[in-house]
């Protein structure tokens, strides 16, 4: 299979969907003249003209207008520059976009996608390093997606654009330049379905986005010690594929949830809660969570490393649930 970057994969998704449906358009800050900070929009202006547009630094307008456009027959894709800034348009996201369909009694669909590059990268410090799925996990009415690879990025972005509901699409900044195998031609990756990245017997890792690959590295290492790890890549965080997760845990009897964001109050709490609710009698150990320590992401590399979760933390949690500490 050919190999392209995550960034190119999302670009292909945009191209195909914009060709496929003339009501799809995309806008965001600084995406036309330089192709996006991660090159993820390069070439779209040449092909689609005014259907890709730069906007002022006006996040409430970007997101609020995306809603208005979606309500009136177009399919906007709004780029958020950095996921950290969904905070600026938070009212539009949680009180308008998430609620309009329901509070209007289902009169209308809201087909829009908010693309939000997230995660820790290059000492960008507290306001440019966040994984913010935790902010929206308690908001009914949103679909939340987080691809982990070039292939899933393309397939999920295409599905998200076709979905008749609002999708928050988190793309980890460090994934953009990474290459991966991507099938030729059109394909869709279904929303709401997790993928088992690696089958295993002893413990289930539930993870997503960039932590999938970190988990895979750990799994390879632990395999040598005779520990067999099953890795579930959620892909869609909301609604998440509880069935696949629960089935796996019923088989392995142990579960570690891994994400990059802060553990306390993070999305991992929902997963851990669900697992123990639905598979309590199968569990041989508590569900453990791995993620960032309870601080903003600091600037200095040493501090950043310390706050972020790493492979060691994952290993440590796995050893704990297997009662093989030390």
């Amino acid at each position, binding site marked *: 299979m050919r190999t392209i970057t995550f960034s190119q994969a999302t670009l292909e998704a945009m191209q195909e969907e914009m060709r496929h449906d003339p*009501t799809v*358009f995309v806008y965001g800050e600084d995406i036309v003249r330089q192709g996006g900070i991660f090159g993820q929009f390069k070439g779209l202006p040449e092909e689609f003209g005014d259907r890709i547009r730069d906007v002022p630094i006006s996040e*409430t307008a970007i997101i609020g*207008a995306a809603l208005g456009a979606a*309500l*009136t027959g177009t399919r906007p894709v709004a780029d958020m520059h950095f996921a950290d800034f969904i905070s600026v348009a938070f009212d539009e996201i949680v009180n308008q976009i998430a609620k309009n369909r329901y*509070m209007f*009694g289902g009169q209308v669909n809201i087909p829009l996608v908010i693309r939000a590059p997230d995660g820790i990268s290059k000492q960008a410090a507290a306001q440019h390093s966040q994984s913010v799925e935790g902010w929206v996990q308690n908001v009914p009415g949103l679909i939340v997606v987080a691809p982990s690879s070039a292939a899933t990025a393309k397939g999920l972005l295409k599905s998200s654009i076709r979905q008749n509901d609002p999708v928050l699409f988190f793309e980890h900044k460090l994934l953009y330049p990474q290459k991966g195998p991507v099938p030729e031609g059109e394909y869709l990756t279904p929303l709401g379905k997790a993928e088992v990245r690696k089958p295993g017997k002893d413990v289930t890792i539930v993870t997503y986005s960039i932590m999938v690959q970190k988990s895979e590295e750990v799994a390879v290492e632990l395999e040598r010690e005779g520990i067999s790890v099953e890795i579930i890549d959620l892909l869609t965080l909301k609604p998440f594929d509880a069935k696949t997760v629960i089935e796996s845990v019923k088989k392995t009897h142990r579960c570690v949830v891994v994400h990059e964001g802060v553990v306390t109050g993070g999305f991992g709490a929902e997963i851990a809660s669900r697992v123990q609710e639905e598979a309590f009698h199968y569990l041989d150990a508590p569900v453990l969570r791995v993620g960032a320590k309870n601080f903003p992401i600091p600037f200095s590399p040493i501090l950043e490393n310390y706050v972020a979760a790493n492979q060691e933390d994952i290993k440590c949690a796995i050893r704990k649930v297997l009662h093989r500490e030390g």
Partner: protein
Amino acid sequence: MPFQKREFPNRFAELSREDQHGLLKTMVRIRTFESRVEELFLNRKVPGFVHLYIGEEAIATGVMANLRKSDWITSTHRGHGHAIAKGAQTDRMMAELYGKKTGYCKGKGGSMHIADFTIGMLGANGVVGGGFNIAVGAGISAMIKKTDQVAVSFFGDGASNRGTFHEALNLASIWKLPVIFINENNQFASTTPTSYATSVARISDRAKGYGMEGYTIDGNNVVEVYNAAAELIRGTRKGDGPVLLECITYRIKGHYVGDPERYRSKKEVQKQVIENDPITRFIDYLKERKLIDDKEVEKIRREASSEIAASEKFAEDSPYPEPEEACNDLFSFSPSEFPEVAL
């Protein structure tokens, strides 16, 4: 208060007598609906929060008479008048206020969330200033699809202090979007006088900050509203870009039904009721010009009364939703496709 005026051509004079009466009809229908809703709220028939449009009818009426069904509007928490003027049915509105299954939102929305997408009414909004950018988005749809639809955003004086106002007007301006921003300056944001919270004498002055035209008119004169809206909407529809129109009015009723109204005197309100009622003023205007007679006025009132009585009966007779219907309508797919959605 000296308005920053512009003479708009008198398009009202070009209307047929029937269409002229149509404006009065709409105003009276709104008034009748609102007056009855007030009573029904006080009689505990209508739950929730209710914000009445009484005294402001000329604005929605004069503006909407210049819109097509395919045009869009965004509304506010004070949205009944906008909905009626845009063509919503009072029976389904009343049913919604009751929380009945036959309401516009199947009982999920209530007074603050009435919408009717079949007539381009994109929804009342419980968040002050939440509508500006929705209207801008509708304008973007018209641009992308190359239609000549326009979007009108109604907003209060209080809402003009929200940051969304700024971002919406700037974006609409740089892209020359077909959006008309209609300010309903009813002199109060809840308990707070406009003059206290707003740093400009005229909200229309803010248009200058967006390279936009801005005008202030007497919002209780439906003829003036009609004429200004006719001119501005026509310009925006043919590509002149967005515009801001401030309509000066007065909120005769409390901010919500039940408001103790400690922030103003009864006398101030009474003076407005006597001197500045938009319906009385319009009837006087028509009569002076012999454009209507008492019998015709009476008929309009009677018809409005029986329509609203019928709407009330419709609401009364309609069933409540089944409790489980709470689980519908969140997404375009059914919850059974993703069982966890309906947890």
